[in-house]
Every structure is written in structure tokens, then in C-alpha cells.
């Protein structure tokens, strides 16, 4: 022990870091901030450091070449001792990092931490969110599989819609005319050098601001932030009733960070690494690419936006969202901090959470996508065929053979792109069914050119049988009258 002390003293005489470190560690913080609500920022930093370590470990094996990346991931998964575990740690660490950054953001928003004088801390935090999402997206690309390949295609398609410079933006993003080696190389440079560099710089400024301005005090309803008096009030709060950050507050940060690392490791062991899915071979088209979890909401949104509004919303939406986040501390820099007195803030968070949650949930089921193999792999349940005429059964055959099942479900089997047809005969009369099949409409292709009259007759005869036994199919109530009238009219 004496030796360690002597070495320490020898070093400190030269480095002279001991005193400033002790001073920083023991700086006073408001008593109430030693709370479990204040642990997310440090946990996000822990995740980031963990990602650096696991990332470097992966870089020992990974080959950032379009021709070899997928193979090197296979080697990591199967050929290198515990390579799969390091991949799983990095993948789950990424998910945890994004999640904790989001939770941290919600917490500081609800606690009013972006208000005077911490506007810049919030703004740097917004950039930290952006670069964290940038890391998540570029990391998904480095897992160079089918999802990554077609995900890049989606990114390029979005970039191409930028007015005037769109096509150039695509070439710049892909590093050439197609998704290939140059694309992976530049995403590797982004993921490993550029964005981590930005992250380290932003984290440095973010932490410096937290130390200079002090941690946000626990918001009390009625304690109003005023530019003129806040600094004085905060100084009294920290110096009169404050506690030293180390050790009185820091133990919760340490415990929570440890818990997060443990949770990442448990997920890594239990769920294993993410992919890679199929090889990045663009001639293999039997694939349904999906983005990683934190971009699923966007995937869902892109299938629900009306076509005409899609490009403006895609290009203007992110800019508007970014401006709202950046302007927030200047618009609401003073006033109440407590979420108990800020109903609109709470409602905003709830709305965003419900919106993103619903879109993510939908993207996990993709009801808008045709089930590509339903026509050949999901037979029509026998109750829909029992006791039917030959014509109706032939119609059922047409239903399968023309891939209607890919978009329409029967007994919850098949696609959900179009409405379920279990009771379609209750909704549409025979004439309406014929019109819908032949002309399409309402987001259904027209089948007029693809069905012979005999096939249409058979198909509609089958669809006419799709109603509960105790309910009669829809009929045109005026038909009898008009037919009767037409019979009468020649007279």
C-alpha cells in the first residue's frame, strides 16, 4: 500500500491532477438530485464507452469490404471463440444506448432541465441524439446483409428526392452508382471514425456544461425559473443544502450503470447476436427487408403516408422536428420546471410515445405488406369450401391461383393489405363485387385484364358465399323494383 501511495504522490507532483479531480468529484449538487431519476445520463455514457470497447474488439476481425464483410461476420459468429458474444454485446449495447438516450431526453424534458441557463446543454444533447441514431443506422449497414443492402436502397431513394441535388446526394452517399464496396467503406469510416469523433466531442462539451452550470435541481411546483435570479438561487441551493456529488450521489449512477451492463450481457447471452440475415446479393430477391428496432416506426410511417405527401413530409418533417427541439429552450427558457405544472409537455411526451409505439408495433406485423406466399402456402379453410357448388369451388381456386389470398385473409390466414373477406358478402352485393374485382380501386389493383369472364363469375360466386350462415348476403334492394319497372316499361 505504501508503494502505491508513493507512486501516486510521485505522479501527482508532476501531473498535478489530484486536486482538480478531487474538487470536481466532490462538487456540491442539490440534495434532491441524488435520485434514481438522475442516473440515465451517466448510464448513456457508460453504454457509449462499452460500445467503444466492444467495437474495437469487433474491428479485430471484421473486414469492411462488400465482398468479405458478410463472411467475416459468419467467422465472428461461428469461427472465433466467443465472437458471437462480442457481436451480441455490441448489438444489444447499441439498443440499450439508444433507449437510455431517449429516456434521458424525456427525463430532462419533463424536469425542465433545458431552461435557463442550460439551453446549450440541451442543444448539444439534441446533437448527441442525432449522432447516436447515426451510429445505430451506420452500424446496421456494417452488418452487411440483405437488410443492410436494401436499407441502403431505401436511404438512397429518400436522398434522391431532395430537390435539384437529389441524384448527386445518392452518388455521394453510395460512393458510386450502386450499393457496393465503396458504400460499405464510407459507412465504415462514418461508424468508426467520423461519428464516434463527433460523439466524443459532443459528450465532452455536454459534460463540461453539466459541471460548469451544475446539475438541474429537482423541479418543485411553483419554483419559477427567472433569468435575473436563477443563478443566485441555484448557488444557494447547492452551497447551503447541497451534498458532494462523490460519494453521496454517485453511488446510484454506479449501481445503475452496472445494472445496465449486466442487462446488456444477459440479453446478449439469452438472445444472441443480431443476424447477419441473408447474403448481400441483390439477385436474391426473395427477401423482405426490415430495419432495426429503432427505425421500425419510420418503416411503418413510410407505408402509411399518402403518396403525394410523402416526399414533402420526408424532407421537411425531420428539419421541422430538429428546429422544434433546437428552439425549445429559447421559447420556453423560463417559467415552471415541474412536470406537474406543465400539462402540454406531459401530453406531448405521451403523444409522441403512443405514436412511435403504435408505429413500431405495426411495423412488427407489417399488415400493409402482401403475404407473398399465402396463395401457395396457406390453403382456404375447409369450412369455406364445405357444401359449395362446383362453380363456387372453382371460384375458391381462382382466389388462390390469382394470389387474392396474398392481400386478403380468410379466417385470419393470408395477407392484411386488403380487408378480410370472411363476411364480404354482407358488405357488397354481387354487382359491387364484380365491379371491385374488375376495376379495382380503393388501393386494389384492377383484375379486369387478368381474369376471364368465366373466372370472374366463379370468383364472385365464391365471394358471395362468404357470410355467416344465419345472415343473408347483401342485395340491391332496388334491383327487384328497377327490374320490375324495366319489365313494365315496354308496355
Amino acid at each position: 500500500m505504501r508503494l502505491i501511495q508513493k507512486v501516486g504522490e510521485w505522479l501527482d507532483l508532476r501531473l498535478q491532477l489530484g486536486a482538480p479531480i478531487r474538487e470536481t468529484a466532490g462538487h456540491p449538487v442539490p440534495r434532491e438530485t441524488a435520485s434514481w431519476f438522475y442516473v440515465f445520463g451517466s448510464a448513456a455514457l457508460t453504454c457509449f464507452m462499452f460500445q467503444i470497447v466492444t467495437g474495437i474488439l469487433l474491428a479485430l476481425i471484421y473486414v469492411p469490404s462488400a465482398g468479405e464483410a458478410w463472411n467475416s461476420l459468419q467467422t465472428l459468429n461461428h469461427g472465433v471463440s466467443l465472437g458471437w458474444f462480442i457481436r451480441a454485446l455490441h448489438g444489444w449495447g447499441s439498443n440499450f444506448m439508444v433507449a437510455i438516450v431517449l429516456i434521458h431526453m424525456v427525463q430532462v424534458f419533463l424536469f425542465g432541465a433545458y431552461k435557463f441557463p442550460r439551453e446549450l446543454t440541451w442543444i448539444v444533447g439534441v446533437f448527441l441524439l442525432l449522432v447516436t441514431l447515426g451510429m445505430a443506422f451506420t452500424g446496421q449497414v456494417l452488418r452487411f446483409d440483405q437488410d443492410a443492402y436494401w436499407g441502403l436502397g431505401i436511404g438512397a431513394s429518400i436522398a434522391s428526392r431532395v430537390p435539384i441535388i437529389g441524384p448527386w446526394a445518392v452518388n455521394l452517399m453510395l460512393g458510386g452508382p450502386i450499393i457496393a464496396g465503396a458504400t460499405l467503406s464510407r459507412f465504415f469510416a462514418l461508424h468508426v471514425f467520423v461519428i464516434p469523433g463527433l460523439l466524443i466531442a459532443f459528450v465532452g462539451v455536454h459534460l463540461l456544461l453539466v459541471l460548469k452550470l451544475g446539475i438541474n435541481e429537482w423541479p418543485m411546483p411553483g419554483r419559477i425559473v427567472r433569468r435575473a435570479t436563477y443563478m443566485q438561487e441555484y448557488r444557494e441551493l447547492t452551497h447551503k443544502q447541497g451534498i458532494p456529488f462523490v460519494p453521496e450521489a454517485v453511488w446510484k449512477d454506479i449501481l445503475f450503470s452496472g445494472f445496465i451492463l449486466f442487462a446488456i450481457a444477459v440479453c446478449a447471452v439469452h438472445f444472441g447476436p443480431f443476424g447477419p440475415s441473408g447474403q448481400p446479393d441483390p439477385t436474391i430477391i426473395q427477401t423482405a427487408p426490415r430495419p432495426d428496432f429503432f427505425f421500425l416506426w419510420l418503416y411503418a410511417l413510410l407505408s402509411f403516408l399518402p403518396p403525394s405527401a410523402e416526399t414533402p413530409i420526408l424532407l421537411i418533417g425531420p428539419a421541422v422536428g430538429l428546429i422544434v427541439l433546437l428552439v425549445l429552450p429559447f421559447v420556453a427558457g423560463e417559467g415552471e420546471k415541474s412536470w406537474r405544472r406543465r400539462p402540454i409537455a406531459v401530453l406531448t411526451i405521451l403523444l409522441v410515445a403512443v405514436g412511435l409505439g403504435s408505429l413500431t408495433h405495426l411495423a412488427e406485423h407489417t399488415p400493409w405488406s402482401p403475404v407473398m406466399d399465402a396463395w401457395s402456402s396457406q390453403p382456404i379453410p375447409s369450412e369455406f369450401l364445405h357444401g359449395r357448388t362446383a362453380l363456387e369451388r372453382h371460384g375458391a381456386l381462382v382466389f388462390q391461383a390469382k394470389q387474392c389470398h396474398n392481400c386478403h385473409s380468410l379466417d385470419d390466414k393470408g395477407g392484411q393489405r386488403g380487408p378480410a373477406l370472411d363476411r364480404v358478402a354482407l358488405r357488397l352485393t354481387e354487382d359491387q363485387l364484380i365491379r371491385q374485382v374488375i376495376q379495382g380501386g380503393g388501393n386494389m389493383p384492377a383484375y379486369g385484364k387478368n381474369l376471364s369472364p368465366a373466372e370472374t363469375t366463379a370468383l364472385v360466386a365464391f365471394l358471395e358465399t362468404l357470410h355467416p350462415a344465419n345472415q343473408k348476403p347483401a342485395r340491391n334492394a332496388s334491383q327487384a323494383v328497377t327490374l320490375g319497372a324495366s319489365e313494365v316499361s315496354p308496355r
Partner: protein
Amino acid sequence: MTAENGISRRAALVKLGIFLNGIVGAALAVPILRYLLSPVTRERRTGYDSWLLLGGLDQFPAGQTRLATYKNPVVNAWDGETGDIACWVRNVDDQKFQVFAINCAHLGCPVRWFAQSNLFMCPCHGGAYYQDGSRASGPPERGLFQYRYKVEGGKLLIKAGEMPTPGQPVANKAGGKTTCA
């Protein structure tokens, strides 16, 4: 020489140093920017597209739509499988062809052909196209992208080399229902 003069001379030297660094930095920025923008400038100069052989006409029977693949003209040795690109070839009547890009006109996912219902369907966001490539339903704003083609000596050639995206002026010209050749 007074102390004041000395300080002002040093200040002037610092300024000179910063100025010289600025000039060198600006001079270096030009080649760096040209290097960074090379994927764009190259496209503007010569273009990425060139005529490529898809195969003999016997591979594409009349009235059918078949998957074809080609090697992209601009590839590097380390591109691996990503240099192989697929496309759909529709032989309308042995005289007229249509060659569709594999990429959905919505966001570039690979569309699949269903010969029974004569539809192309996209697995990502549910876009669908008729057999002539025109939009049938879903989020795409337009029909499938089409490559220019020509038939020479019983072989089908297409002009390709760049991934088609919705923003490309060329893709817009050749897309939709307009025929090509």
C-alpha cells in the same frame, strides 16, 4: 526598438502565420473536396450507364416476364456479389420488350413478379404494379423504372449501370407507361 514595437511585430508575424496557413488550407481543400466529390463529378463527366448484354432472346419467351441478371459495368474487385444486379424482362410480343428495374419506385426494395395475377408486388410497403410496369396500388407515386434496351444479333442489351431512384431525371423519363428503345 521599443517593447511596443516588438509586440506589434510579433502580432503581425502571428497574423502572417495564420494567413499563410489559411492559404495552404484553402489550397489543400480543393483536392480534398474533389476527392470527396469524385462519385458525383465522375457521373457528370462520363455517366455510369453503358450497354450491357442481358442474354439471348431465347431466354425471354414471348408474353412472359423473366428475371435476368447482369454485372454492373462499374465495379471494383472487392465488391463481391453486390456487383450483380437483377432486373425483370418482359417480352411483350417478340418485337417489343420492357426491362424493369428490380427496385420498387417507392423506396427501392426488390419487387417480385407474380405471373398468375400479372402483378409485381413489393415486400416492403406493399406497392403493386401491373405487367406493363404501371402503378397498380400502394405507396409508389409512379410505375416501375425501365431501362432502355436494344436487340442486336438475337441478343438483348440494356443501358444500365446506376441504381434507379425516384429523384433521377433519367429514371423519370423512361419510367411509367412510356415505352422504350
